[in-house]
Each structure stands twice: as structure tokens, then as C-alpha cells.
């Protein structure tokens, strides 16, 4: 008996591609069909989120299934030879919007990610006062980089709810960065296929899915920076127009007033580009040089004259990272364990493998891609500069072995991937097609590599406990935002009025600052150290004196904190570990009940887990 010949995956992929010809649009190719498929993938993710809220064990499987449905068809089409430039751009936008909706649907009613509350507070302050630069003690730098808040306030003052307005701005930012990167890569000599694939690779950077999709200043600054790079590339390629010069100035200025770190990274990238162009005697080498100098000057002027508070906010991050690195090298500090959160179990083995695999693939392909890019595009200064930026990926890996270093490395990915995306895409396409554009048998290999890179990035985007909604977790950012805390904050606003100074933990600080319009004390914003009071086991004279000096008449206590270690590593705020050391046991319940029965202390609110204490009489001078 004759058996049917085995069909190779490549032939099967070709058959699928041919059969879909009837649904092919003349100009947009398979984009209309893929839009429906991607929407279905988003819907599956939404079902996964709902399953998570209902505590169903199938939730993670649904999430990853939805991500596959979104990603794989778009990836296959992007690798295909037939797709037109218009279709590729459309697919980049489709993928970008689908992934943005994955983030929005994670919290479809209100903001829940840590940084979002900081900027929410700044928006509220601007709406209330009508002016910029009001102090924000939970993120002191935020009011002095008000680009995001200005655009959002314009929408809010038109009557659009803040949650809708904020997501509209970030959605526009996502469209902008997708378009800017595609055109930037084209200016760097990429074909539409390479530029499209590079756009997909960029979405594999771990910050793309959630961190740079949240309502936070970097989410808007990064698209501005990408646009500035595109306009400068266009200028250096000889298309000097007044409009393009004006837009470049506008974009660089927008970056400077929107986010500190993005302006520093933009300045660094432009400096690399300028020096490279100067050494190579490129045509129009003055373009990146003037831009680099202008960016550096503008950044420093803004920092010194307006946003000097940023210095004390950022310096500890970098000095702390340097100190930790030194301690690791000298053996005084253990190496940070990867994929092991502060609490309980590590990520699933397959997630760890994907994460490692993604990093390994990117690390191995970058040197190869840099070599190819420089050989093929050595006359293109932007291409050479992007190749140089991508090499920083290797250096960023070393930072992941300390806590502070990991934070810096994570924050730098979004910038390093501007270059890494291009070189990785080049290498992937080499496995798929030859120089004449003919399909090779490496299509399956190329797809597998891209899936590892993409899904490794998705796995690294958030730890498993934060990726899906579920039951309340202690100090777990989105998993700690829930109605009891929100309604406590709203009660305080309604019954005690706004602006009260309060001692509380990390999560309730965010809720009280936004829902409650209170002034929850933070060490960074208020320059008062009340951590000793927070962690004290008694409410004695020392504690009373500290609160009297800090003028803190209220305490909000969440007794759930004693049920677990903190998932983000701290209960109250960064810096408490200098007082307590790394938390090995959950906080002692005695710490949380120390106010009960104390003279001069009133318990004015009790919702079971949350209690509000009025300490005003206890800390008054008359006592």
C-alpha cells in the first residue's frame, strides 16, 4: 500500500499561504483577515483574564493561547515574500494595537500598575490647580516632566474620563513608535520586509508589553525619541527640509520635557551616532552632531533649572547599582537569583527556558547581525550607529545579577532594542531568504527563532503572579489593588477631607494619593524617615516623637501584610531593607496592631483588614 508522502512544514506553510489568496486584499494583502484573527486572540486573552479573576486554573493557558493567536499569523505573514510594504506597515500597527489591548484588558476599568498611580496624581493636581509643577510626593520627578500629563489633561478637561484619556494617549504613542521605527529602519537601509520584522522584534523587548504600555512618562517619551531618530536619519540622508528640522526640534524638546531617562539615552545614542559620523566623515555629519549637542544642552538646562529634584531621585539608583556590583565582585553580596521572585515559587520551567532562550538567541544573533549590517550598510551612518547601540545588550546582561542593576538593565532594554531589533531581524531573514529574495527551507527555523524571541520577551514582561488577575496578594502591585483598599481611600477623602499626612504601606500609599487625594508620607518625596515607626513593634515615645516631627496624624494599617512576604520585596518603600534587611518572614502581626489600646489613639475606621487610626492627640504637643 502506498502511503501519502510526508509534507514538510515549509510546504504546508506555502499551501496555507496560497489557499488564502481568495481573502487577499489588492493593496493590504491578508491584513483584513489577520485583523479578525488578532481580535480573536485578544478576546481569548480577555477570557483568560476573566478566568484568572474567577480563580480558574485554565487562566494561564488561555492567556498564552491568545498570545499565540495574535502573534503567529502576523509573524508568518511578515516573513512571507508576497506582503507589500503597505501591508507590512499595517501588520506592525495591528500587532502593536493588539498587544496594547492585552495590557488594557488586564485592568479594563482603572489603572492598577505601580507607576500609573504616580502620573494619575500629577494629572489630578494639574486639573485641580490649572497649572503645572505642583509637588507630587509619591513621585517627585513626575510634575517636572509633564509631557504625558499635559496631553492627558487636555482630554480630561474636555470631559473624557482619566482612564480613557490616559489610554488614548498611550494608544496614540504606540502607533507613533511603530510607525517611527519602521521608517527609521528604512532610512537605515532596511527593506520593507526587514523593517517590518525588526518592528516585531522590537516588541520582544520585555518592557514593550506592559511597562511601556502603562500610563507613565516613558511610554510617551520613547515614541518621541524614536521619531526624533527617524527625522534625523531623514535629514542625514539628504532630505533637508524646514519642516523636518522643525519636527526634529519639537520631538527632542518633547523628549526632554517628558522623561528624564529617555532624554539621557537619546543623548547617548545621538552622541554615538555623531561620533561615528564624524570619524567616518559622513555626508551631513553635522546633523547628528548638532542634535546630540542640542539634546545634551536641553537636558542639562531642564534638569538644572526646572527638574533638579530628579537628581536625588536618580542618583541613588545608579550609585546603589554600582555599590551592589562592587559588593558582588568582592564577594560581600550574593548574586541575584534570576526568575526567583521575593516570594514563594519561581516561574514555571518552560517560562524560564523561554526567557533564557530569548536572551541567548538575541545575544548570539547580535554580533552576527552587526557584522552583516556593517558589511552591507557601512555607508549608512544610521545603520552603523544602530549596530553600535545593539552591542550594549551584552553589557546590560551583567547588571541583572544585582537588584539595582537588574532594574537599570530592565529600563535600558527599550533603548538597546532600538538597535538590536534591526540586527536580529537581519539574521532571522537570512535563514528564511537568500539575497535574491528566494525562500529558503529555513522558514520553520526562522519562525521558531522569532517565537522564542517574542515569547521569551512576553514571559519576561511581568512575573507570573502579576501577569494575570487573581486573588489578593501582599505588596504585589496590580494584585494588591482591590475594592477594600480603594473604598478606604475614598472614605478618607469624603469624611476627613483631602491632604492629610498619613503613614501607610506601599499599596495603600498609591490608593490614598489618587482615590483619596491624601498625602501619604514617602521618604523620597517628604524627606522624612518614618520607616522605623512603620516597622516598630510598639507605639512608644520614640515613635510618637518621630511622627510629631514629621507631622503625621494618621496611620492606615493593612493587617493582610502579615499573611505573606511582600511579592515585590518591600512592604512600605524602597530603602526599608536598609532597616530590616531582606524579609525572610512575613511582617509580625504585632507591628500592625501596635496602635490599638494606646492612649491618645482613636481607631476611626475598621473594614476588617484595613484600619484607620487618628494619632493627632497622641502626637500633640500637649502630651
Amino acid at each position, binding site marked *: 500500500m502506498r502511503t501519502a508522502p510526508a509534507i514538510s512544514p515549509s510546504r504546508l506553510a506555502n499551501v496555507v499561504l496560497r489557499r488564502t489568496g481568495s481573502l487577499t486584499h489588492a493593496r493590504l494583502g491578508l491584513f483584513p483577515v489577520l485583523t479578525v484573527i488578532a481580535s480573536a486572540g485578544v478576546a481569548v486573552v480577555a477570557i483568560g483574564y476573566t478566568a484568572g479573576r474567577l480563580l480558574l486554573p485554565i487562566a494561564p493557558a488561555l492567556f498564552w493561547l491568545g498570545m499565540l493567536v495574535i502573534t503567529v499569523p502576523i509573524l508568518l505573514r511578515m516573513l512571507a515574500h508576497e506582503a507589500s510594504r503597505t501591508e507590512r506597515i499595517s501588520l506592525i500597527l495591528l500587532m502593536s494595537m493588539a498587544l496594547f489591548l492585552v495590557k488594557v484588558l488586564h485592568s479594563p476599568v482603572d489603572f492598577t500598575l505601580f507607576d500609573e498611580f504616580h502620573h494619575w496624581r500629577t494629572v489630578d493636581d494639574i486639573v485641580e490647580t*490649572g497649572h503645572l509643577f505642583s509637588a507630587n510626593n509619591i513621585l517627585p520627578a513626575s510634575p517636572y516632566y509633564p509631557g504625558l500629563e499635559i*496631553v492627558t489633561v487636555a482630554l480630561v478637561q*474636555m470631559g473624557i474620563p482619566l482612564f480613557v484619556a490616559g489610554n488614548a494617549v498611550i494608544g496614540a504613542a504606540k502607533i507613533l513608535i511603530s*510607525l517611527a521605527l519602521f521608517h527609521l529602519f528604512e532610512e537605515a537601509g532596511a527593506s520593507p520586509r526587514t523593517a517590518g520584522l525588526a518592528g516585531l522584534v522590537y516588541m520582544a523587548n520585555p518592557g514593550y508589553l506592559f511597562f511601556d504600555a502603562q500610563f507613565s512618562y516613558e511610554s*510617551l517619551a520613547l515614541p518621541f525619541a524614536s521619531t526624533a531618530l527617524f527625522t534625523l536619519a531623514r535629514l542625514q540622508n539628504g532630505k533637508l527640509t524646514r519642516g523636518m528640522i522643525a519636527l526634529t526640534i519639537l520631538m527632542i524638546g*518633547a523628549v526632554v520635557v517628558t522623561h528624564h531617562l529617555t532624554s539621557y539615552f537619546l543623548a547617548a545614542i545621538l552622541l554615538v551616532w555623531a561620533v561615528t559620523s564624524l570619524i567616518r566623515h559622513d555626508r551631513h555629519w553635522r546633523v547628528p552632531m548638532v542634535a546630540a549637542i542640542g539634546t545634551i544642552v536641553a537636558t542639562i538646562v531642564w534638569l538644572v533649572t526646572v527638574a533638579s529634584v530628579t537628581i536625588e531621585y536618580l542618583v541613588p539608583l545608579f550609585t546603589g547599582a554600582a555599590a551592589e556590583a562592587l559588593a558582588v565582585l568582592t564577594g560581600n553580596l550574593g548574586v541575584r537569583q534570576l526568575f526567583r521572585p521575593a516570594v514563594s515559587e519561581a516561574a514555571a520551567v518552560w517560562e524560564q527556558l523561554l526567557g533564557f532562550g530569548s536572551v541567548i538567541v538575541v545575544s548570539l544573533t547580535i554580533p552576527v547581525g552587526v557584522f552583516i549590517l556593517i558589511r552591507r550598510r557601512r555607508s549608512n551612518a544610521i545603520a552603523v550607529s544602530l549596530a553600535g547601540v545593539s552591542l550594549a545588550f551584552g553589557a546590560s546582561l551583567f547588571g541583572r545579577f544585582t537588584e539595582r542593576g537588574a532594574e537599570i538593565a530592565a529600563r535600558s532594554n527599550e533603548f538597546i532594542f532600538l538597535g538590536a531589533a534591526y540586527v536580529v531581524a537581519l539574521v532571522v531573514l537570512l535563514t528564511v531568504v537568500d539575497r535574491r529574495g528566494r525562500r529558503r527551507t529555513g522558514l520553520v527555523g526562522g519562525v521558531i527563532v522569532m517565537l522564542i524571541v517574542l515569547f521569551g520577551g512576553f514571559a519576561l514582561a511581568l512575573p507570573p503572579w502579576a501577569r494575570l488577575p487573581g486573588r489578593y496578594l501582599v505588596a504585589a502591585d496590580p494584585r494588591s489593588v482591590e475594592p477594600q483598599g480603594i473604598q478606604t481611600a475614598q472614605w478618607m477623602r469624603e*469624611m476627613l477631607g483631602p491632604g492629610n499626612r498619613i503613614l501607610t504601606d506601599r499599596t495603600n500609599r498609591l490608593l490614598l494619593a489618587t482615590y483619596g487625594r491624601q498625602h501619604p508620607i514617602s521618604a523620597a518625596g517628604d524627606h522624612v524617615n518614618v520607616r522605623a515607626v512603620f516597622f516598630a513593634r510598639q507605639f512608644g515615645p520614640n515613635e510618637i516623637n518621630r511622627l510629631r516631627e514629621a507631622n503625621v496624624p494618621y496611620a492606615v494599617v493593612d493587617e493582610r501584610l502579615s499573611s505573606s512576604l511582600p511579592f515585590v520585596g518591600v512592604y512600605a518603600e524602597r530603602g526599608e531593607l536598609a532597616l530590616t534587611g531582606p524579609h525572610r518572614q512575613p511582617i509580625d502581626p504585632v507591628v500592625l496592631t501596635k496602635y490599638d489600646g494606646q492612649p491618645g489613639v482613636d481607631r476611626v*475606621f475598621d473594614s476588617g483588614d484595613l484600619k484607620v487610626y487618628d494619632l493627632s492627640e497622641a502626637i500633640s504637643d500637649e502630651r
Partner: protein
Amino acid sequence: MSGRQRVVGSISLVAAVVLIVWAANGLETVLAAMGLPFVLVLPGVALQKALFPSATGSESALLAISLGLGCVIVLGFVLNLTPGGLHATAWVISIFAVALVAFGVGLLRRPGGRTWLPPRPDSLVAVAMMCSVVILGSAFLIARLGVNEHSRPGFTQVWMLPGDTPSTVRIGVRNEEGRAEDFALRLDVDGQRVAEWSPLTLGPSQEWTTEASVPAREAGQAVMAEATLVRVDDPVTPYRTVHVRIAP
């Protein structure tokens, strides 16, 4: 479909949507809905027409978005310098002024023979978009349903604060257990029972408040008022407890 027909058709469609939304949700909703394109689209498109009249396709979208967002940020800083600051009227006037001037310049710089027309409708794209809108709308409904049905333990709030008049307290109870509950609330002053409310039946998300007198032992003496909430089916175990010292 001719260019004029497309313009008329597009305007008619927008006007129909505006009227429907106005009828269903009122003028505020219409203004809010128009706010998004007014802020995020209008200034950017106008500036793109003025500064890059030859741009088309994805590049024109890139330029319009970046110019629009950048323009609004600049306007924000300008408005901040004015006594009135950032407010709705100022935004409307400033954005409209920028758009008007920019569109005027754009008309003058428009490449010969090119008209500003809405895109030609396409049936395959339209069907795909409609299907996607339906699917995504369902996704949002499912996600929001999950928020409403989120498995979480319920809670009950009790609070007590000094009243508006001397020797009174304001007491409140709010039921967020997710079902109707029967409570009893007891008010003690310096250990003496002065009031009791039982049964205190509250439905889901229902709130009860009252103002109660707190008799002083001696004139001018502060007293401790304590409110204890118990469940009717377990009257012995305090469920929630609050207390305040009432100064004379």
C-alpha cells in the same frame, strides 16, 4: 463613488453618529467623544498639511501624530503661563487657532491637483473592521464582566467621627459583603451602653449613617465612645470596632 459623494457621505455619517449619541447619552457625551479627535487628531493633521503637504500614507500618519502630540505639549506650557492656566476653554481656543492657521497654510501649499478626501470605502476592509469591532467589544465586555464577578472576600466598613455639634458622634456602616446582612450596632461611652441599633439590615453596597449623642460624665470631661458591630447570627463576637475620644 466620486470625491464629492465621499465628502458628503463622510460628513453625513459623522453627523448621524453625533445625533444618535446626543439622543442616547446627552450633549456631554458628545463633547467628550469629540474631545478625543479634537485634541489628538485635529492639530496634528492640520500641521502635517501645513509643514509636509506632500506626505502620504503611513508617513503622513507618523507626522500627524507626532506633530499633534508635540503641539499640545507646547500649548500646555504656553497656557501654564497665562493667569487662567490649563482649562477647557483655553484648550478649545488654542487648538482651534492652531488648526485654523495650519489648515490655511496647508491649503496654500497643497500640491497641485491633490484634494483632501476621505479614503475610498472598501468592502473587504469594512467587513473585517466590523467583525473586529464586534469581537473586541465582546472582549471588553468579558473583561469587565470578570472585574464585576471577581472572586474576592467581601467586607463591611464601620466608622465613627466626632459629630458636627459637641457631644455627638457620627457613625456609619457600609455593607460590601456581596449579599444582604443583618447586623447589630452597639454604642458604649466609657463602658456604659448608651444606644443600640438592632437589627440593622443592609443590602449589598448599602450604607447606613446616624448621629448619636454622647453624654459626658461631668461637664468638661472627655469621654471614650466605642461602637461595636456584631452579626445577628453571632452577637458575642465583635465583627468591627471603632472608638473616638470626645473632648468637652
